[in-house]
């Protein structure tokens, strides 16, 4: 999993998307996969009530489990529901882009994602950093920000800063706000001023960058186990964590699963277009 890249990527995606697309839709799409499913991964306790997945990675990325939220089909379903309810094309496109970015970004850890679910439960991964959610929130933070995962987050901070104009007032007023009626609705319904709207737009960059930097500093300076949990920028690291290893599967099996999964996904897209999306797309603005 990525800790801050999901938010940071939204600015780059918005900047380089020429179609009319909602940035709010992109950020919602980038979060929707984890929005309602993440709490049991680390565990959650209020009084005597506790909620924790017995095997976090199977729950989070597998089937049975909520791993379907990290598939392209899930993005299509969520975007279609929003299209039906909001009748807005920019949100539909934004959610699809944002959710797909989440699915592909999470290929970076050692567990990966079921990109073509439900056609296949094959998980795809490049295994750049260790999936260590089973170590709890702090163990995962220490592992992630001691590995290439943290470097990945910091790379996205630099990419956004290199194209800093995407954070400018001009870009917001010329490109972000006109593409999405939600900003005007916020102003009318809640009296959100231009400063407030701009703050909302920029907040996710500030939050993502600060989160990456803050957890990195925590891992290096305040982590009680920092003596053992050292920086390890090797592929698939850090070595000191009890990570979920990459599945060792035959390439022929992976190719077969991919062919089936991609075919089923294509059929789903065509069905969704014919049965739901086309009708509401034509009525939408």
């Amino acid at each position, binding site marked *: 999993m990525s800790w801050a890249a999901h938010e940071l990527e939204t600015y780059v995606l918005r900047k380089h998307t020429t179609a009319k697309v909602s940035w709010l839709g992109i950020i919602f799409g980038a979060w929707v996969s984890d929005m309602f499913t993440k709490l049991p991964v680390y565990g959650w306790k209020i009084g005597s009530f506790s909620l924790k997945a017995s095997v976090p990675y199977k729950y989070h990325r597998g089937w049975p489990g909520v791993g379907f939220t990290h598939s392209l089909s899930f993005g299509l379903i969520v975007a279609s529901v929003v299209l039906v309810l909001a009748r807005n094309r920019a949100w539909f496109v934004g959610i699809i882009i944002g959710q797909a970015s989440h699915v592909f970004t999470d290929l970076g850890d050692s567990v990966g994602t079921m990109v073509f679910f439900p056609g296949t439960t094959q998980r795809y991964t490049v295994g750049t950093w260790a999936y260590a959610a089973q170590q709890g929130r702090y163990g995962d*933070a220490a592992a992630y920000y001691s590995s290439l995962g943290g470097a990945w987050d910091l790379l996205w901070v630099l990419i956004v800063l290199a194209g800093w104009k995407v954070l400018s007032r001009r870009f917001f*007023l010329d490109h972000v706000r006109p593409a999405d009626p939600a900003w005007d609705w916020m102003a009318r319904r809640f009296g959100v001023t231009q*400063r407030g709207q701009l703050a909302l737009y*920029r*907040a996710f960059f*500030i*939050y993502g960058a600060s989160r990456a930097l*803050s957890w990195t500093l925590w891992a290096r300076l305040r982590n009680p186990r920092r003596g053992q949990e050292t920086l390890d920028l090797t592929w698939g690291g850090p070595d000191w964590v009890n990570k979920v290893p990459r599945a060792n599967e035959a390439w022929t099996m992976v190719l077969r699963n991919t062919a089936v999964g991609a075919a089923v996904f294509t059929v789903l897209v065509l069905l969704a277009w014919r049965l739901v999306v086309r009708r509401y797309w034509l009525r939408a603005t």
Partner: protein
Amino acid sequence: MTEPARPDPSALETGGSDRAVVRRAHRVELAVYVFAAASLVVLGMFLTSKILNWIIGPVYVIAVVTLVTPLALRLAGVPDPYRRRKASEEPVRVEEARP
């Protein structure tokens, strides 16, 4: 404390001399963003997930920017070009005044 002089709306619309005022206001606002980021990093090191979570983190940034910026502008003696106006006042079209 007396209310700082407000920029002339017509000058803002035509990009007149009050452009400098808007530019100063933007600089103050930028400083507030830097403060929000720095304070979030420092607080995050100690409070960790209590403040660095998906809800509190962005809300903290928005709250700091929207609440501290007007105060910072007053302290700096710069008129706030985005202050919400009464219906009777002529709206300031700040968008056209961007450099």
